[in-house]
């Protein structure tokens, strides 16, 4: 579907996610497994904080001088005999790609996993062509394709929401008659996909990093599907977000190290490839090499407080630590880019009208910021989005907005706060219901819990009980004055 992966309203997506027990368990297990692997891999490397700063410095420098690096890169692709197309919009990119396929008389397209091509929704466009077949070759994306193009739910593990039985059912439609063992099913996919690879005439790949000073691209995969897609077909089309550059192989190598350790806790991804237009004398690899460089609103982040989000290297670590992603999964976000990075990036790419809720779908726990290998201050960028939506675009309305403004006034005026302290007990007392207090000690000032509060308090009491505020005479300030008067020493 492109960037937006669901037409359901946010609350319905959350409700659906809450019901999907398998997806929930699967994500939780994946997060916990990845936690240990990732942290161990980083600890083993040593000096992790300095590595992050190194990665950040490379990415920030590239973004700051992005036009120059793009110029250098495209010059070098051209020198090697390749072609570069700069696409402002997804439509421009799609038109160009379809045109290349037509010109090359391509009939069998193989794709390796690429978030940007998912952003283009190019698969649907290719499907519409009568004499062109399209095949996703990353195992997870293949599973999703064969499940009637189900939407991905993670940027590194797109099919994380599917279990082995579901995969078995999907593969049965293709003639698989084995059990639900992932290894057996992977072997089936290998055999099935191998035949398609061999007849492919067009390979579409993403690009982990484009190398400015050589015109080569850097691809990282564990399966090796990108390498088959760039070896076998005569034509390769690379689709990349405009920010995915590095100055040279030297910096690519640094980023590859950060990426592998952050994404899956590997030291290096199994296949780290630097490749481009075929050189003289070689017989495989692309004879026709095209690079499509896509903006699609990325440039809206440049020169703003959101520029740092373009540092992202799509490792998925922020998804893997996120307690919200853990609960609602990728589909809950309704964006191709879920999790913390998605909550920052999606409103930039797709606008606040479509993705304005996402920056609020975070408890600001900062686990994302803490894990990001290139030091993107993700939780701060979420607050920045909230600021844009409330203060600048005035998108907040109604009673909640009114209450937040009252909170602002109340917490900036000592007089009003003292009034609140004096009357809080009475203010909330109409909602005070006597019910057994099982969470003891901390809340037991009045022996009661509030179970249905007014206004925003209702959001609280939909989920949990609220301690009834103490009477004014029991307040800390009152106690402290008395305590001071008595000499203020504790024995």
């Amino acid at each position: 579907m492109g960037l937006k992966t669901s037409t359901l309203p946010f609350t319905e997506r959350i409700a659906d996610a809450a019901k999907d027990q398998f997806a929930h368990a699967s994500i939780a297990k994946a997060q916990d497994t990845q936690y240990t692997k990732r942290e161990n891999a980083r600890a083993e490397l040593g000096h992790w904080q300095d590595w992050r700063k190194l990665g950040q410095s490379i990415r920030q420098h590239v973004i700051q001088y992005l036009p120059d690096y793009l110029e250098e890169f495209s010059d070098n692709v051209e020198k090697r005999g390749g072609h570069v197309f700069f696409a402002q919009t997804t439509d421009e990119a799609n038109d160009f790609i379809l045109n290349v396929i037509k010109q090359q008389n391509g009939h069998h397209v193989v794709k390796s996993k690429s978030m940007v091509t998912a952003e283009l929704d190019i698969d649907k466009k290719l499907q519409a062509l009568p004499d062109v077949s399209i095949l996703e070759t990353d195992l997870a994306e293949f599973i999703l394709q064969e499940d009637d193009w189900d939407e991905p739910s993670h940027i590194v593990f797109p099919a994380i929401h599917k279990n082995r039985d579901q995969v078995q059912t999907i593969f049965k439609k293709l003639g698989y008659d084995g059990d639900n063992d992932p290894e057996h099913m992977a072997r089936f996919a290998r055999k099935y996909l191998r035949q398609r690879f061999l007849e492919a005439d067009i390979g579409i790949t993403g690009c982990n990093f484009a190398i400015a000073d050589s015109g080569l691209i850097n691809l990282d995969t564990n399966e090796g599907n990108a390498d088959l897609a760039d070896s076998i077909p005569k034509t390769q089309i690379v689709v990349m977000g405009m920010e995915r550059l590095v100055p040279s192989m030297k910096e690519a190598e640094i980023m590859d190290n950060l990426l592998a350790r952050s994404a899956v806790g590997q030291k290096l991804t199994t296949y780290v490839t630097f490749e481009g237009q075929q050189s003289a004398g070689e017989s495989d690899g692309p004879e026709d090499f095209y690079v499509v460089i896509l903006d699609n609103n990325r440039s809206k982040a440049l020169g703003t407080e959101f520029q740092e989000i373009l540092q992202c290297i799509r490792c998925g670590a922020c998804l893997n630590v996120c307690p919200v992603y853990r609960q609602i999964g990728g589909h809950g976000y309704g964006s191709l880019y879920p999790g913390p990075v998605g909550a920052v990036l999606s409103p930039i790419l797709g606008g606040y009208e479509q993705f304005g809720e996402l920056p609020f779908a975070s408890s600001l726990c900062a686990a994302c910021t803490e894990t990001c290998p290139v030091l993107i201050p993700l939780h701060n960028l979420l607050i920045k989005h909230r600021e844009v939506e409330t203060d600048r675009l005035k998108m907040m309305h109604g009673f909640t907005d009114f209450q937040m403004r009252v909170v602002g006034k109340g917490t900036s005026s000592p007089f009003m706060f003292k009034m609140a302290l004096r009357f809080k007990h009475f203010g909330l007392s109409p909602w005070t219901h006597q019910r057994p207090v099982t969470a003891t000690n901390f809340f037991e000032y009045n022996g009661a819990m509030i179970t249905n509060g007014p206004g925003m308090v209702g959001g609280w009491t939909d989920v949990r009980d609220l301690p009834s505020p103490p009477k004014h005479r029991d307040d800390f300030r009152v106690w402290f004055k008395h305590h001071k008067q008595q000499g203020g020493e504790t024995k």
Partner: protein
Amino acid sequence: MKVSIYTTCMMDLMFPQVGKDMVEVLERLGCTVDVPENQICCGQPTFNSGYVEASWPVMHNQIDALSSIDCDYIVCPAGSCTAILKEYPDLLVDDPTDPTGQYMAQAKILSAKVYEFSQFIWRVLGIADCGAELNTIATYHRSCHMTRLLGERETPFWLLENVKNLEVRQLEGIQYCCGFGGTFSVKEHEISELMVTSKVENIEATGAEVLVSCDPGCLMNIGGRFNRLGKPIKIMHIAEVLNHNVDESRIRKVSEVPAPAAAPFP
């Protein structure tokens, strides 16, 4: 040593006992304690919700109030509120309502003085054992802001380790947020419910009778969910634990106890 209590709005509004325990512990350890009168709130409820313009007056008030009393240190019963005061100088860079930079100048002074309660005891006072005794099994909830924004992962564990007769059990999934997140708990209560439910399950699985934390917000969230589910748990702020059944003869400095174990990974 002169210490100002940074009360936090939540403690003032809801949990006076936490403040009382904190004052008693600090005085027992030799501090002269005072409470700046006009302080209210650090500004997180509005700032983190995107009401940034409305937050500058809140922060200014807090800066004025906390600067009104001469003190060596400012001590706070909440890791989260401590962390944002430490961040004030970074936030006020964007403040258009402070043209002379007077609030920025004061914020820098305050941010250097402020400590969360447990880290103040261990790192500033150098006290490892407050002389407290609590005969129970507890588990500790590590708050996100205290851990990640304030960068304090250790002192609560080290102090609890020295509480007599207290067994502290490791909490599975300790790195995951409880779902509080300030206004998040209200605005996105559907997601928050999933998060806090999962936290309750993990706490139950430890078999602990008491849940301890350094952040009243998290405790109110988790405790409120326990209560809604009708499940028993005793909720204690760390100040209450350290002020429980105190025998002053047991008070020990950091230098007088064995070096503490590393704080739990992660």
